[in-house]
């Protein structure tokens, strides 16, 4: 039997009886419910973000969003399991593949959105997935009421068992067959009140931890079809370059090498949906043969028009734009009258902050396994956005939507790189050309030299302070190359990847102006973890420290004075900025690091705060600098994300983002000269090792009761400015250019 309850105009809760009497509950969209249940039965894989309870009491929960290390494969199922009052020890979690059906040739996403690593998994799941667990629990309660002869509202659930007032107990497993036959009411069973949560808010280790530490966890790169050829690539150093000469004889002479093929970007396709640059692929029986063949390729590339560009020239261009008085590409915000406020100035300050190009450098290299049959495509893809990967495969194969099977095992890091699917396009193109399954594998030199980078930026900010030492004017001008060019985004929205209209200190300074100057570069750009907050927070939170220094004021006091009384301000994208919550995280890190020692501490203390879409973060760092050796002695981070689903997971995300941000700020920069990227390995793109990072990150997570906000990159923006501010206290050197170590050594 099956039934459904309407949740909203387009979404329904669905109940099914699976094989061996299992009870299956999930959400389906309006378009999908007309399908006969027979199509849905059998394999759990086809059932979406569902919970399945077997008659032996085991519970299977699907995790719909790719887990790139954000912990959503643990936290999303726990949201469902809590509503269900399941025994977590009997819950198995499986990653769901892409859920797609065909609706007259159009895709129908049967699991809703499937997206990882964008900070939106938990908020979306909170809205959608709790009801799945609540309905399953309601059905089990009705079944138990019949069995025990007790009204359902007098029964309670605990750890996979229904308990009657007289102490009689029935297990979920013994109830599933009856539960599957309970007629549904029109009403959606209510979700729990927070006081009854058992799993939400309790710490839980990663569901994949045991598999990971024993080497059994499987990533896309570990998958294989027996007859697949391994493909490795060399890309043209210039996206607009051409292949002038190729000699494949030596490569083809390597035992195991089968074929050498060429790939071209499709000219009419957006960035990230086709090959990133002209490429030559070596296809071989195994990886070692393919890599040897690749080394023996004789290639001569010819630069295109971009062959004269350099990251140095781009920065000069940015500085020249900010020196001049050209109209900005976009005026992001203009409160009051900054020019008029200038006339009331008692003090003025101006500073320029320069931040470099950055690469993603995911641990698991780009790869894709694809098998194309006559009427079917089967892929294993490390992706953050399986629906976007599907679109690339569909365009290149012309297959019906439901004939494309995309599996997404755990992903070895995303950081935004795997929101693009150039590597999927490459694998599908090669499989078509050679008419065999292909296992595409990128090498690190290709990964670092052919990324969708985060572009460099230059911020120039000036502040106006009046006689009462109040900040009355803020004029911010930023120049950068937008990440959204050639991605179907209208010109007047290109700035949205670069800055925000509601970022600090907007709304707190009566005369506030923010302008953006767009730069052009042939180097491909794309989404990057923490964008656009990372670069803006470094400039803004460094500059607020500089203002405090100019006014001879404690920078914590300057910040608290700027935030003012607890109140809320509207955010540009809806929602509110709660200044009380922001001030709170700031005070918490200050207390923990003993900010009262700020002035007399031998080590430097630095602080910074930021907000992202209703979540709040502050860092306080203690840095020592005997001579030229910089050590982060302590790192404290406080976050307020509203309700915490998994405190252990949140600690991991916050500590991890802190270290990633410090590693990036200390060491990392991508540069290009003559249009060619100059970084090719971890020596030239040196992620920080253990010795350069703090020994611990002290995480303070506020346990709130508002709907949960995303946390995967929340702790990134404030780490670098807090470090630069601490370095200033420790060394009297103000670093306004990243990477920090290189600039610090230059200035010392």
């Amino acid at each position, binding site marked *: 039997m099956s039934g459904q309850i309407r949740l909203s105009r387009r979404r329904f809760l669905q109940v099914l009886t699976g094989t061996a009497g299992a009870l299956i509950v999930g959400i389906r969209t309006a378009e999908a419910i007309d399908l006969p249940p027979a199509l849905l039965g059998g394999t759990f894989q086809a059932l979406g973000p569902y919970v399945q309870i077997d008659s032996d009491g085991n519970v299977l929960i699907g995790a719909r969003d790719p887990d790139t290390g954000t912990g959503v494969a643990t936290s999303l199922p726990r949201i469902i399991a809590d509503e269900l009052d399941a025994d977590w020890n009997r819950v198995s979690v499986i990653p769901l593949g892409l859920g797609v059906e065909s609706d007259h040739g159009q895709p129908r996403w049967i699991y809703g959105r499937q997206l990882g690593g964008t900070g939106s998994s938990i908020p979306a799941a909170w809205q959608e997935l709790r009801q799945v667990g609540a309905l399953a629990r309601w059905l089990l309660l009705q079944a138990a009421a019949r069995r025990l002869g007790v009204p359902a509202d007098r029964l309670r659930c605990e750890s996979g068992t229904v308990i009657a007032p007289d102490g009689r107990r029935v297990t979920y497993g013994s109830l599933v067959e009856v539960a599957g036959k309970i007629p549904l009411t029109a009403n959606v069973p209510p979700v729990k009140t927070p006081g009854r949560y058992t799993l939400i808010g309790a710490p839980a280790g990663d569901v994949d931890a045991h598999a990971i530490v024993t080497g059994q966890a499987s990533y896309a790169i570990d998958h294989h079809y*027996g007859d697949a050829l391994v493909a490795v690539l060399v890309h043209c150093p210039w996206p607009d370059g051409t292949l002038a000469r190729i000699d494949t004889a030596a490569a083809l002479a390597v035992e195991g090498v089968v074929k050498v093929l060429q790939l071209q970007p499709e000219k009419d396709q957006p960035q990230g949906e086709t090959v990133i640059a002209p490429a030559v692929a070596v296809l071989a029986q195994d990886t070692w043969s393919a890599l040897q063949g690749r080394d023996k390729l004789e290639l001569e590339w010819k630069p295109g028009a971009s062959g004269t560009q350099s990251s140095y020239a781009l920065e000069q261009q940015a500085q020249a734009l900010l020196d001049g008085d050209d109209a900005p590409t976009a005026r992001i915000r203009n409160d009051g009258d900054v020019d008029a406020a200038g006339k009331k100035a008692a003090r003025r300050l101006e500073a320029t902050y320069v931040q470099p190009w950055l690469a993603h450098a995911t641990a698991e290299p780009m790869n894709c396994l694809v098998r194309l049959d006559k009427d079917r495509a089967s892929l294993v893809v490390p992706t953050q956005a399986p629906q976007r990967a599907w679109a690339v495969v569909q365009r290149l194969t012309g297959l019906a939507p439901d004939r494309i099977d995309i599996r997404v095992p755990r992903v070895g890091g995303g950081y935004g790189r795997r929101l693009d699917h150039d590597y999927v396009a490459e694998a599908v193109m090669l499989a078509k050309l050679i008419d065999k399954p292909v296992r595409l594998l990128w090498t690190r030199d290709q990964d670092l030299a052919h990324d969708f980078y985060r572009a460099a930026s230059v911020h120039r900010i000036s502040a106006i302070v009046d006689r009462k030492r109040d900040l009355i004017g803020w004029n911010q001008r930023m120049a950068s190359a937008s990440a959204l060019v050639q991605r179907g985004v209208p010109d007047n929205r290109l700035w949205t990847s670069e800055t925000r209209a509601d970022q600090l200190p907007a709304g707190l300074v009566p005369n506030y102006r923010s302008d953006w100057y767009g730069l052009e570069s042939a180097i491909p750009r794309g989404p990057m973890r923490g964008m656009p907050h990372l670069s803006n927070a470094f400039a803004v939170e460094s500059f607020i420290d500089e203002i405090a220094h100019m006014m001879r004021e404690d920078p914590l006091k300057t910040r608290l004075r700027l935030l003012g009384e607890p109140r809320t301000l509207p955010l540009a994208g809806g929602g509110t900025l709660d200044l009380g919550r922001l001030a709170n995280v700031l005070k918490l890190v200050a207390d923990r690091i003993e900010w009262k020692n700020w002035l007399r501490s031998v080590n430097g203390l630095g602080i910074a705060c930021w907000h992202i879409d209703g979540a709040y973060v502050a860092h306080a760092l203690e840095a020592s600098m005997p001579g030229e050796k910089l050590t982060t002695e302590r790192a404290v981070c406080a976050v307020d994300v509203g309700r915490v689903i998994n405190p252990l997971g949140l600690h991991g995300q916050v500590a991890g983002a802190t270290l990633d941000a410090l590693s990036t700020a200390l060491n990392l920069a991508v540069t290009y000269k003559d249009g060619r990227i100059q970084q090719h390995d971890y020596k030239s793109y040196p992620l920080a090792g253990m010795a350069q990072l703090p020994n611990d990150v002290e995480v303070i997570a506020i346990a709130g009761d508002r709907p949960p906000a995303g946390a995967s990159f929340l702790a990134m923006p404030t780490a670098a400015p807090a470090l630069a501010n601490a370095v200033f206290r420790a060394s009297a050197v103000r670093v306004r250019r990243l990477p920090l170590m290189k600039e610090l050594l230059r200035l010392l």
Partner: protein
Amino acid sequence: MPPAQDQAMPTPDSNIVPEKGRDGIDVVINGEPFRHTGDPAMPLLWYLRDVLRLTGTKYSGDAQAGNGADLVLVDGKPVAAIGQPMKALAGRQITTVEGLAATDGTLHPLQQAFIDEDAIGCGYCTPGWLISGVALLTRTAQPSDDDIDQLPNLCRCGSQTRVRRAIKRAAAGKAGQA
């Protein structure tokens, strides 16, 4: 070989009789003897991943030591599997992440400590941290922070502080037993 890997492999043809006396390079991997009969220059990494389908040792993308995801123990010393041609390994004892636990499945104390400390980001580089961590604990029962600082591994997810705690937890457990 663990069952998960077996499932990924095609069923062997029962008519195939192993060649007798074929030259090869004999190695012991996780206690089991293997003979490599392919290209003697093939790096250990590809022998593990492509030939044996032991995929716990990860490819870091680099031709030389990269982020440490491909570390294995050769006669107890941590080395990058990508940099070890099979011909240099004749007669050596190799331990991969799959071989750290006891044969009955009991985890190595450091594996357990990684679980207890949640010392995992995306998990891709974790096998490499375990290998270098186990080598460190074998060398130094109570490693200092400076000792831990010397680990060659890289991790963009930022698991380092939790890895440090896990190593100390495993070391403390050892001290407790003594």
